[in-house]
C-alpha cells in the first residue's frame, strides 16, 4: 500500500529577507515567502521552516510571476521562428510565468483539436504556463463565427483574430453578442483595415520624409469607438489590445467612466519608443500598430499611470531574418518582447511616472483579472508562480543572448535597469540568472 503524500513530503523553498510586492493586496514590505510543493504556503515578516531550501533575497524584489496576455509562439506552423519550448525559455528568462498566445498559428486555433494540441505541448515543455486565445472567426477570415462555446469549454481563454482586426461591424456585433451568451472575452486588434490600407508607419512627418505609406492614428480610434458602441448594445467583455494613440486611450477612459465592461493593454514599444526609432528604415521598429508620435507616447504613459490602460503585454512577435531583412515595405510587422518586458516596464518606475507596485500590477494581477486566471497574487494557497528580480541592476539588452529563436527587437544595446534573477512556476525554478 502506498503512503499518502503529506505536506512534509513536499519540496519546500524559503525566500528570505526579500521586498515582497503584491499589487493585488497592496503589500510592499520586506519579509519571507515559503513555497510548499506547487503553492505559496506562507507570506510573512519572518518565517522559519526546517528542511526548507533557503534563498537569500536581500536587495531583491519578489513579485507574482508576470502574466503576459499577448504573445505569438509560432507553434504549430513556424517552429523555425519560435516554438512552445523556445518561447517558454524566453518567458522564463523574462520573469513571465503565464502567457496567453494568439491564435494566428498554422493551422490557426479555430477548432478544439488545436487548443488541445497546445495544451499538451505546454504540459510536455513545463516552462511558463501557456493559455491560448482561439480565433473569433473561422480561419481568422472575419466572416464566420467559430465554435466559441466548445472552444472555451476546452480551455480557450478569449477570442480574437490575432493581428487582424475584426473589420466587419455586423460580424463583430455577432462575435460580441455570441461571446456574451457564454460570458467570454473578445480581444480586438484595433485598427480599421479600410483606413490603414497598405500603410506601414504612423502618418506624419516621419512617414512623409521616408516616403512610406502611412496609417493615421484615427484608424485606431475609429475601430475602438465603433467597438465601444457595439459593446454598449451587446454587453460583451471587450479588450482592446496594444493601444498606441492618445485618442484611443481617451476613448477607453470615457468608456470606463460610463461603466462599459472594457479593458485595454499596451506594449513596451508604445511607451518606450516613438516613431523616430524607425530612423533610417529600421525594420525592427516596424510594428502594428505603428510607433506613434511623442505626444501619443506620453498619452500612453499617462493612460498607464491613471489606470486607463490595465495591462502591459510584451506583444511578442518572433520573426526570422528573412522576414525582417527586407525593404521596409516588405518586412513583417512586430518585435520580440518577452525578455525585455520587465526592464522596459520598470523604466516607468525609474523615470518617476509610476510606483513600483503600480508597474507590477500592470504586469501581473491586472492581466490575470482580465483573463480571469488565478495568477498574479502573492497569497497563501496561490500557485507558486513568482519572479525574483533586482530592480536596480543595470545592464544592456543584447538580442544575441535572447533565448527566443528570433532576435527582431529594436532595443539591442539599450541600457536598462532591473533584471530577473529567478523565475518560479508551480514551485519549480525554471530560470536562474547566472552571475
Amino acid at each position: 500500500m502506498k503512503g499518502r503524500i503529506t505536506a512534509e513530503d513536499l519540496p519546500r523553498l524559503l525566500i528570505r529577507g526579500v521586498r515582497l510586492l503584491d499589487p493585488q493586496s497592496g503589500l510592499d514590505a520586506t519579509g519571507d515567502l515559503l513555497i510548499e510543493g506547487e503553492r505559496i504556503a506562507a507570506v510573512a515578516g519572518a518565517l522559519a521552516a526546517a528542511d526548507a531550501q533557503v534563498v537569500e533575497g536581500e536587495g531583491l524584489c519578489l513579485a507574482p510571476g508576470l502574466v503576459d496576455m499577448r504573445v505569438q509562439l509560432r507553434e504549430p506552423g513556424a517552429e523555425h521562428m519560435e516554438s512552445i519550448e523556445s518561447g517558454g525559455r524566453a518567458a522564463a528568462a523574462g520573469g513571465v510565468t503565464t502567457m496567453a498566445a494568439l491564435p494566428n498559428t498554422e493551422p490557426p486555433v479555430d477548432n478544439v483539436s488545436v487548443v488541445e494540441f497546445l495544451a499538451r505541448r505546454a504540459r510536455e515543455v513545463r516552462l511558463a504556463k501557456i493559455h491560448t486565445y482561439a480565433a473569433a472567426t473561422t480561419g481568422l477570415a472575419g466572416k464566420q463565427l467559430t465554435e466559441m462555446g466548445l472552444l472555451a469549454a476546452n480551455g480557450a481563454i478569449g477570442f480574437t483574430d490575432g493581428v487582424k482586426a475584426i473589420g466587419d461591424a455586423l460580424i463583430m456585433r455577432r462575435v460580441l453578442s455570441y461571446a456574451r451568451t457564454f460570458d467570454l472575452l473578445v480581444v480586438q486588434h484595433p485598427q480599421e483595415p479600410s483606413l490603414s490600407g497598405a500603410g506601414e508607419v504612423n502618418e506624419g512627418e516621419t512617414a512623409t520624409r521616408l516616403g512610406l505609406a502611412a496609417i493615421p492614428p484615427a484608424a485606431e480610434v475609429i475601430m475602438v469607438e465603433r467597438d465601444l458602441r457595439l459593446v454598449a448594445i451587446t454587453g460583451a467583455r471587450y479588450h482592446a489590445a496594444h493601444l498606441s494613440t492618445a485618442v484611443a486611450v481617451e476613448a477607453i477612459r470615457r468608456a470606463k467612466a460610463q461603466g462599459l465592461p472594457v479593458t485595454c493593454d499596451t506594449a513596451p514599444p508604445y511607451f518606450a519608443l516613438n516613431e523616430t526609432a524607425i530612423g533610417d528604415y529600421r525594420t525592427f521598429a516596424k510594428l502594428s500598430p505603428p510607433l506613434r508620435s511623442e505626444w501619443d507616447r506620453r498619452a500612453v504613459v499617462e493612460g498607464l499611470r491613471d489606470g486607463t490602460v490595465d495591462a502591459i503585454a510584451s506583444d511578442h512577435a518572433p520573426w526570422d531574418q528573412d522576414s525582417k531583412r527586407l525593404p521596409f515595405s516588405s518586412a513583417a510587422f512586430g518585435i520580440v518582447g518577452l525578455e525585455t518586458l520587465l526592464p522596459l516596464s520598470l523604466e516607468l518606475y525609474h523615470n518617476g511616472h509610476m510606483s513600483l507596485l503600480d508597474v507590477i500590477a500592470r504586469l501581473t494581477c491586472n492581466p490575470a483579472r482580465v483573463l480571469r486566471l488565478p495568477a498574479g497574487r502573492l497569497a497563501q494557497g496561490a500557485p507558486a508562480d513568482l519572479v525574483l528580480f533586482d530592480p536596480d541592476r543595470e545592464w544592456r539588452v543584447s538580442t544575441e543572448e535572447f533565448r527566443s529563436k528570433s532576435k527582431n527587437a529594436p532595443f539591442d544595446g539599450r541600457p536598462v535597469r532591473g533584471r530577473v534573477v529567478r523565475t518560479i512556476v508551480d514551485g519549480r525554478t525554471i530560470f536562474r540568472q547566472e552571475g
Partner: protein
Amino acid sequence: MQAGVCDSAFRHRHLLGIEGLSPAEIERFLDLADGYVELNRQAEKKRSLLRGRTIINCFFENSTRTRTSFEVAGKRLGADVINMAVAVSSMVKGETLIDTAMTLNAMQPDVLVVRHPESGAVQLLSEKVDCAVVNAGDGSHEHPTQALLDALTIRRRKGRLQGLTVAICGDILHSRVARSNIALLNTMGARVRVVAPRTLLPAEIERLGVEAFHDMGAGLADVDIVMMLRLQSERMHGSFVPSTREYFHFYGLDYDKLRAAKPDALIMHPGPMNRGVEIGSEVADDIDRSLIRAQVEIGVAVRMACLEILARDLGDGSSAP
C-alpha cells in the same frame, strides 16, 4: 356590437395575426377546432359547410406542410380549393404584389390563404381585396394558425393554457411562429420564456412579455412545455451560430437538457425538424412526451375552424369592420 352576436364573435374580416385578438376570440377558434379533431378521425370526414365557396391558397414562399394542411381543411369543409404557387409565376414575371392581389380579387374568391417571405406583405395584400385573408406566415412576423394549433395541442393534453410555463427555444430572431405564440400564450395567461444564444434573440424581446434566457438549463427549469424552433440551414454555419455541432451541444433538445423541465413536460416543434440540430431524435420520437405529430393532426382541424369562421361570418354579412 350587433344584436344576436355573442361576445365571442370574431370581429375581424381577416386573420392576419394573433396580436390584437381577445381571449374570447382565441377560445372560439380553439373550441370549434376541438370538434373538428374528432370529425377528422372518422371515416366520413367531409362537410358541406363551405360548398360553393372558393378558397385560393396563394403561397409566395415554398411550403408543403402548411399549404397541404389548408388544402385538406378547405376540401373537408366542401370548398373549392385552388393552389397557386406564386413563387414560380407572377413574381418571376415582375408583377407587383398589389397587382397580383387585384388579379386574384377579380376571380371572386371567398378566402385567400397567403404566405409571403416579407413581414407585413399579407396585410398589404389584405387591404386590396374584398374577401377574407388568412395569414399563413409573413416573413418573421406572424403565423397565427400555427400558434392556434399549438395552443389547442397544449390544451388537449394539459387541459388549460392559463398558468402554464412555456419555453420557446431557438431562432427567435427570425421566427414568425415564436411571435405568434408569444402573443397567444400571453393573451391566454401562460408564462412565456424564450431561450436562445444572443445572436438569435431580437432586441428588447422582453417588451413582448417574455423572460429571456441564454442557457437551456436555466431556461427549461420547471417548464410545462418545451417548444423548439427550426434553425434555417443558412443560419447554421457561422453567421448566427458557429456550427450545427456547437448549436446542438448548447441548444439542441436532448434528454439531458430536458431533465431541467417538469417531469411531465411536453415537447413541440412546428416542423420540419432538423434532427441533430435543434432536436435529438430520441426526444422528437418519444411517444409519451413529443406532441410533434399531434400538432400536424390538430393543424388541419384548426385551419378548418379558421376557414369556417372567416367564410361564414363573411356570408352572414356580419363582417364588421
